[in-house]
């Protein structure tokens, strides 16, 4: 019986445990490769989303700048009326508040189509009152994504359309 045991061992093939370990190693390797590939796809998607959000925030910024430099705000100062809370804290600007900033209807529509759009973080507006050389100004913060934002300060001025 002893002789038979030693003769059979070289022909014994793989044991179940060896087979399971091998298959497990193959599965781990394959899943590692797959997760790397999927991770790459997710990064691309995230970058694309960030670029879209940045364009939205930039469009909001450019529209505010265009109104500030051309048609101007309402007689009560537009952003200044909403931002001069006196506490220096940031105030969130809603779409309804934004409607009251501009008299010219088309310009107002341009503004509300990219800034403070409901259910969209990019383009969300916050503001607070500041002073520039003793004159009142509104500091605006346009959300891009997460804690990233675009900032600008609007001094109270008459629109002249030349600069």
């Amino acid at each position: 019986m002893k002789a038979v045991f030693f003769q059979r061992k070289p022909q014994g093939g793989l044991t179940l445990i060896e087979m399971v370990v091998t298959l497990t190693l193959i599965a781990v390797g394959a899943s590692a490769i797959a997760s790397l590939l999927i991770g790459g796809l997710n990064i691309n998607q995230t970058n694309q989303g960030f670029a879209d959000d940045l364009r939205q925030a930039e469009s909001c910024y450019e529209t505010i700048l265009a109104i500030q430099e051309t048609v101007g705000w309402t007689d009560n100062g537009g952003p200044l009326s909403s931002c001069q809370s006196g506490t220096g804290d940031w105030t969130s600007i809603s779409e309804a508040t934004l409607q009251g900033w501009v008299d010219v209807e088309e310009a107002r529509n341009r503004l509300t189509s990219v800034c403070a759009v409901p259910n969209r973080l990019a383009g969300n507006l916050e503001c607070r009152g500041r002073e520039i050389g003793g004159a009142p100004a509104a500091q605006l913060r346009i959300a891009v994504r997460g804690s990233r934002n675009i900032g600008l300060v609007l001094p109270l001025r008459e629109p002249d359309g030349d600069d």
Partner: protein
Amino acid sequence: MTRSARSRVYGFTLIEAVITLALIGALTALIARPIADLIQARSNVGAATEQQANIDYALGRMARDIRFGVQGVEACKEGQFRIENEYRLDRSTLRVNDSVLAEGIETFKCELLAPGELRLYRLVINDSETRVFKRKD
């Protein structure tokens, strides 16, 4: 050592080799297809990302031309935009002064948003769009 004794000590039998190869083949067939699909998807996404980078660059370049251009905007319509440089859509290729900016472009549009005194332009390339205020009239 006789032939039969040697075969018991060394190597696989034909049936063992065949079974092993069949198992490896089955495993490969099981794993290869999803991985090949993933690699294909990654390649597609890579190409789309490169195209999007070209679109972002094109939008940024046009925006810079509008913002700081000394001249006024000479043409702003579907498929064409001209201010110092000329951008136009030639079939599916976006060109600037005959140099290729981006390929695979379906939509290229420039529009002066009303009211015109805002000097606010809207640029659209495929699904990406941005607004630009012309600083100098």
